């Protein structure tokens, strides 16, 4: 993998996709399929979560197996604040982001001392700790999770309306993707990608590798927290299963399908995976066999993901 460079072709594709997504609610209302507006919000939220993990794994080269902890932390922050009477998105969402970032700082500062397999395992262990801690705290819902009985309020916007909420999610994701694209081409982005390529060399060149990795890890965690804050608003429930290691695995599956180390990889993967789930589950309850086989095929024969297969994800060098 070289350094990430986006082509004009991909920017055009992204703009067209954005336009199509802007028209989606109108289309769905016309078809009397309001359900799919809400569903699309969900897909975009997972796209955001997968994108945040792609920053950590795909760009930073840190194979974190505990990303769900940050996703869940964001969701729980919003739900807990709502429990305490704080419903303002302007307050709750940045706080969710901050809590997830803080957690990532804590976990990252310890985990980044280890390498390779041990890093994978220690991030997993920390995520499990957070999982069991949440499960144990009855006042935060324990096993049952914490209900969010009404969505956050956002100025004069009515987030209870699925379409309005959808546009808020879409705007958030678009901004994050724009920022990530800028980041990938910035000096920081180049540094973390080079660390992914050859960490010891970066150290020998005088880069404080640990700090760069930690900052990258924290940004990824913070964005996952933002995704969690959105998700709890979409679904109305902060569930401990959001923190489960299978959730971390699912996010990984998304970015590998979509393309590791590509700005749009997380989006492509989340959309593909959730659409498959939505439509194939009605065809056969055993559709996960198909998913497993596709995933195997991607890993064995298309390491750049589906996006890479079609050249969406990265410029050809």
């Amino acid at each position, binding site marked *: 993998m070289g350094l990430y460079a986006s082509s004009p072709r991909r920017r055009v594709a992204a703009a067209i996709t954005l336009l199509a997504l802007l028209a989606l609610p109108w289309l*769905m209302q016309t078809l009397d399929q309001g359900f799919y507006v*809400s569903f699309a919000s969900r897909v975009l939220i997972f796209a955001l979560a997968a994108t945040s993990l792609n920053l950590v794994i795909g760009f930073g080269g840190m194979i974190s197996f505990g990303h769900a902890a940050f996703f869940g932390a964001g969701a729980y922050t919003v739900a807990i604040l709502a429990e305490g009477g704080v419903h303002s998105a302007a307050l709750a969402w940045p706080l969710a982001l901050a809590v997830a970032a803080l957690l990532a700082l804590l976990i990252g500062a310890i985990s980044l001392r280890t390498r390779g397999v041990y890093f994978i395992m220690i991030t997993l262990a920390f995520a499990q700790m957070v999982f069991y801690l949440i499960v144990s705290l009855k006042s935060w819902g324990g096993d049952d999770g914490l209900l969010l009985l009404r969505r956050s309020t956002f100025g004069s916007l009515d987030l209870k309306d699925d379409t309005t909420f959808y546009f808020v999610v879409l705007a958030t994701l678009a901004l994050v993707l724009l920022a990530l694209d800028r980041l990938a081409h910035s000096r920081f982005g180049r540094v973390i990608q080079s660390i992914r390529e050859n960490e010891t060399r970066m150290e020998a060149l005088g880069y404080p590798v640990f700090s760069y990795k930690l900052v990258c890890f924290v940004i990824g965690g913070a964005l996952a927290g933002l995704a969690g804050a959105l998700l709890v608003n979409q679904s109305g*429930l902060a569930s401990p299963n959001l923190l489960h290691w299978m959730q971390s695995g699912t996010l990984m599956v998304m970015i590998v399908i979509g393309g590791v180390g590509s700005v749009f990889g997380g989006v492509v993967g989340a959309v593909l995976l959730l659409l498959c789930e939505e439509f194939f589950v009605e065809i056969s309850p055993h559709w996960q066999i198909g998913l497993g086989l596709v995933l195997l095929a991607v890993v064995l024969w298309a390491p750049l993901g589906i996006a890479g297969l079609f050249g969406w994800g990265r410029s050809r060098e």
Partner: protein
Amino acid sequence: MRPTKCLFALATLLLLGTSVHAAEATSVKVGFLSTLSGPGAGLGIDIRDGFNLAVKQLNGKLGGLPAEVIVVDDQQKPEVAQQIAEKFLKKDKVDFMTGIVFSNIMLAVGQPVFDNKTFYISANAGPSQYAGEQCNPYFFNVAWQNDNLHEAVGKYVMDKGFKNVVLVAPNYPGGKDAMVGFKRFYKGKVSEEIYTKLGQLDYAAELAQIRSLKPDAVFFFLPGGMGINFVKQFVAAGLSSDTQLFAPGFSADEDVIKAVGRRCSACSTPRTGRTTWRTPRTGASLPTSRRNTDVCPHFTPSQGFDAALLIDGAVRDVKGRLDDKEALRKALEAKHFKSVRGDFKFNSNHYPVQNYYLRVIGRDAQGRVTNKTMGTVFTNHADAYVAQCKMK
């Protein structure tokens, strides 16, 4: 250009989907959401079979309209259940929902269902919240309030003079209701309340703790496979010679007996001890099911059976005008059917008022291990929360 093409494909798929739902009020659509996989699956499957049996006996109709029952597994995960419920409400646009076994799932799903003005007919989950302050015109329960069976056990344990009891339940709303219900009528010493993880299967540590506490009775509420394992391990640990085991009715249903009954009857032989396994329940078994499906004539399917009959009667009453929510609610409250397990009537919080009986596991005339009904614990018993319910 590829992404736009994708979107177009998606749009056509949806178009195909819409045409199916064009016809309205000529059928009754029921969203059946239940736990059909994992250790808690036994109850969900029983309820589903009971519900389907009723629909089958009604020639595939509910209230004279063709019935469409959409069955989906919630995997015993609240967030999965929520997504399915959202789909039921917004995409399938179901007229009724039913099926949920576990109260934590009920609580996660309830609000959106009620907000959507869709009637939920509970065949099992009866959380205290929906009986009391959060009672809702769109929620009906044909089984019981969670506490009720546990109250009956508590009363019986109290009456029989047990002095030192250990309580075991999973750490979720149903489990907490169980402990509260038991203690409402049992006033003796509770030496320990053990909360286990929902879905836990190995109880070695808890059993060792029970052994050290030396209680004269253990009350456990562990639905499905959890209960099977608990009883098996309880017997294997040799605790059954000194301690009596009590459980609410569904923990001693026929499939549970099939799994562990042999051992339980073995330990109730005169030589090894005094253990009998006593379980209160409501009413008689479902009489007709054995002929129609493989379902044994036991208790849990009757809950699903009753849920279907309740819908049937109400739809018939409003003559298929399912949009008239007010009329439909009145028809449901009127309850135009007689329950197979002995009759009940709805309280003001839409929970049943009914009798509770005691069963003991023993051998029947043919020497098979089964449940025997011993006597009545409560007559026309209501739940403890109805006073807090201000139904709008």
